[in-house]
C-alpha cells in the first residue's frame, strides 16, 4: 500500500484544517493510500465530523436526532484531533498553522478544507432578536428544530435558495405557515434558472407557501421583549413573523488566510485541477492543497473565459478531498485531475431533485420528459447548442443517461424522443442572471467571474 509514495517527497506530517466532510474523507484517503506519518485534523466546531444535508431536512423536521449525523468512518485514522478551536492564521514560510488558542501546528503538507459558514443577518441588533436563526451547523439545526416544535405562528424564510426552500418545506411538513422572501424572480433561480424556478414557485404555492419574489427583507422587527415579531420587505410589504430563518447563503471561511500570499478572497481559495493552492501570481504554492466548499478551480467543462468553479456540493467535497489526498502523496506524474462532474441533490416540496453538470452556465433549458402531471420530470440545460447539465425531479433513475449527454457535451437540445417527452423539443431561455450582473444573494455562487 505504501509502495507508490515517492520516498523523496514522503511527508511526515500532514495537517488538515477543516474537520467536516472534505477533511474527513481526505484523512481517510491519506491513510488508505498508505500515509503512515502524523495526521492532524483541526476543526472549529467542538464535534466530530458530521453530515450537513440532513440538517435542513429530517433534523430540522424533528425526524432525526442530530447526534446521528456524525459521519461514518471507513478507515482507521489514528489522527490527532483538535476540535472546537478555529485556525487563526497561516504562516506559509514556516509551514505553520496558528490556532485561536495560541497553539501552533507545523506541517509538511496542508489541506485547507474549512468550508463555509452561514451569512448572518447584516444588522447585529436585529440578528440578536429572539427567534432569528441561521441554519448551517448542527447547533443551529437543533435550535431551529426546537423552535419549530413550539409551533410558531409564522415563519419567515429570508432567501429562496436551497437551504431556504428546504427549511420552508419542513415548515409545511409540520403544518406551519411560512413565507419565503427571495430577491430574484423565482426561488432557486440562482441554481436552476428562473424558467424551472417558475415551476418551483408554483409547486411551493401549491404547498401553501407564501412567496415574495423580487424582494428582500429590509428590517426585522422586535417587540419590547426583544422577540422577533415581524419584518419589512423592500416591496413595501410587511409581515408578522415570530421565527426568521436567515438563508442568505454561505461565506467562505477564509478570514484566517487573508494575510497570506494565497490567491484567496471572499469567493474562496484558488487551486488548480490537482487541488494545489495557487498564490496571487497564479503559481503553485508548495505543499498546500484545497478541497471542498472553499475551493475554486478551473473545471475543464466549465472554464469558459477562464472562469473558476466553486460549488457547495456534498459530492464535490468527497471527490475533491480524495484527489487532493492522492496528489499529496504522489509524484506529479501520478497526479489525478479533479474533473468529476458537479452533482447535487435536494429534497423539498415533494420533489427529489438531482442534478448533474452545472445548470448555471446555461442559456437555454428544455423539458425532455414528464409524467404524473409534472410531478416527475427532467430538464436539460444547454449553452450555445451544447448540453451542460440535467436536473431530474423524482426521476432519479433517468439521470445516468443524461449524465452521459453532459459528459459528452452532446448537442442541445438532445434528440431523445422519450415516450413521456414533448412531441417537439421546446427550448426556453434558462433564466440565469447575465454575467457581470449582481449575483443573487442566495449564497449559491457556483459560477463566479474570476478577477485578474
Amino acid at each position: 500500500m505504501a509502495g507508490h509514495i515517492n520516498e523523496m517527497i514522503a511527508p511526515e506530517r500532514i495537517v488538515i484544517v477543516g474537520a467536516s466532510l472534505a477533511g474527513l474523507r481526505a484523512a481517510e484517503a491519506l491513510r488508505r493510500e498508505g500515509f503512515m506519518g502524523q495526521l492532524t485534523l483541526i476543526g472549529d466546531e467542538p464535534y466530530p465530523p458530521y453530515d450537513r444535508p440532513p440538517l435542513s431536512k429530517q433534523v430540522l423536521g424533528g425526524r432525526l436526532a442530530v447526534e446521528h449525523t456524525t459521519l461514518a468512518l471507513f478507515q482507521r485514522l489514528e489522527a490527532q484531533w483538535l476540535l472546537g478551536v478555529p485556525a487563526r492564521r497561516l504562516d506559509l514560510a514556516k509551514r505553520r498553522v496558528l490556532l485561536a488558542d495560541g497553539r501552533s501546528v507545523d506541517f509538511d503538507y496542508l489541506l485547507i478544507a474549512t468550508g463555509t459558514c452561514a451569512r448572518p443577518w447584516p444588522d447585529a441588533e436585529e440578528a440578536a432578536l429572539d427567534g432569528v436563526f441561521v441554519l448551517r451547523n448542527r447547533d443551529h439545526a437543533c435550535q431551529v428544530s426546537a423552535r419549530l416544535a413550539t409551533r410558531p405562528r409564522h415563519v419567515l424564510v429570508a432567501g429562496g435558495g436551497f437551504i431556504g426552500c428546504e427549511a420552508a418545506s419542513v415548515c409545511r411538513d409540520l403544518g406551519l405557515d411560512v413565507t419565503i422572501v427571495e430577491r430574484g424572480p423565482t426561488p432557486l433561480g440562482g441554481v436552476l434558472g428562473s424558467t424551472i424556478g417558475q415551476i418551483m414557485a408554483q409547486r411551493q404555492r401549491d404547498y401553501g407557501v407564501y412567496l415574495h419574489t423580487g424582494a428582500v427583507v429590509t428590517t426585522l422587527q422586535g417587540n419590547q421583549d426583544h422577540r422577533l415579531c415581524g419584518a419589512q420587505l423592500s416591496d413595501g410589504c410587511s409581515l408578522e413573523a415570530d421565527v426568521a430563518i436567515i438563508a442568505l447563503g454561505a461565506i467562505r471561511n477564509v478570514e484566517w488566510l487573508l494575510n497570506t500570499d494565497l490567491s484567496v478572497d471572499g469567493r474562496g481559495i484558488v487551486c488548480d485541477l490537482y487541488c494545489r493552492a495557487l498564490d496571487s501570481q497564479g503559481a503553485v504554492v508548495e505543499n498546500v492543497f484545497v478541497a471542498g466548499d472553499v475551493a475554486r478551480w478551473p473545471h475543464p467543462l466549465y472554464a469558459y473565459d477562464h472562469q473558476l468553479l466553486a460549488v457547495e456540493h456534498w459530492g464535490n467535497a468527497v471527490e475533491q478531498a480524495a484527489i487532493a489526498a492522492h496528489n499529496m502523496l504522489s509524484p506529479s506524474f501520478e497526479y489525478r485531475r479533479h474533473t468529476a462532474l458537479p452533482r447535487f441533490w435536494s429534497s423539498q416540496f415533494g420533489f427529489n431533485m438531482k442534478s448533474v453538470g452545472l445548470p448555471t452556465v446555461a442559456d437555454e433549458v428544455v423539458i425532455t420528459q414528464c409524467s404524473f402531471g409534472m410531478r416527475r420530470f427532467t430538464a436539460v440545460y444547454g449553452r450555445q447548442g451544447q448540453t451542460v447539465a440535467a436536473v431530474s425531479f423524482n426521476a432519479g433513475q433517468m439521470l445516468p443517461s443524461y449524465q452521459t449527454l453532459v459528459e459528452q457535451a452532446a448537442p442541445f437540445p438532445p434528440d431523445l424522443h422519450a415516450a413521456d417527452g414533448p412531441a417537439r423539443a421546446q427550448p426556453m431561455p434558462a433564466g440565469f442572471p447575465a454575467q457581470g450582473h449582481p449575483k443573487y444573494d442566495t449564497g449559491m455562487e457556483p459560477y463566479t467571474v474570476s478577477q485578474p
Partner: protein
Amino acid sequence: MRIIVDLNRCQSFGQCCFAAPDVFHFHNAEALEYDPAPDEARRWDVIRAAKACPVQAIQIGLDDEEYEGAQREKTHGRSYQ
C-alpha cells in the same frame, strides 16, 4: 453502527426500504431518508439493505473508536470571534 448513503448515486429503487424499514424510508415519493446511526440490533437488516442496493450506494462504517479518541479542546470562557 454508522452508515452513509451516497445520495448522488441513489436512484430511489427502494430496495433498502424493504430490507431495513426501520432505517430507510422515502419521504415523499422518492427522497430517501435514513438513520445514519442505526441501532446495532439492526445490523443484519442494514447489511441486507446494502447488498440489495442496485447501485451500491450504502456503505457501513467502522466503529466509533476513532471519535472516542478525538480530543475536544475546552475553551473555558474564551471567545474566538
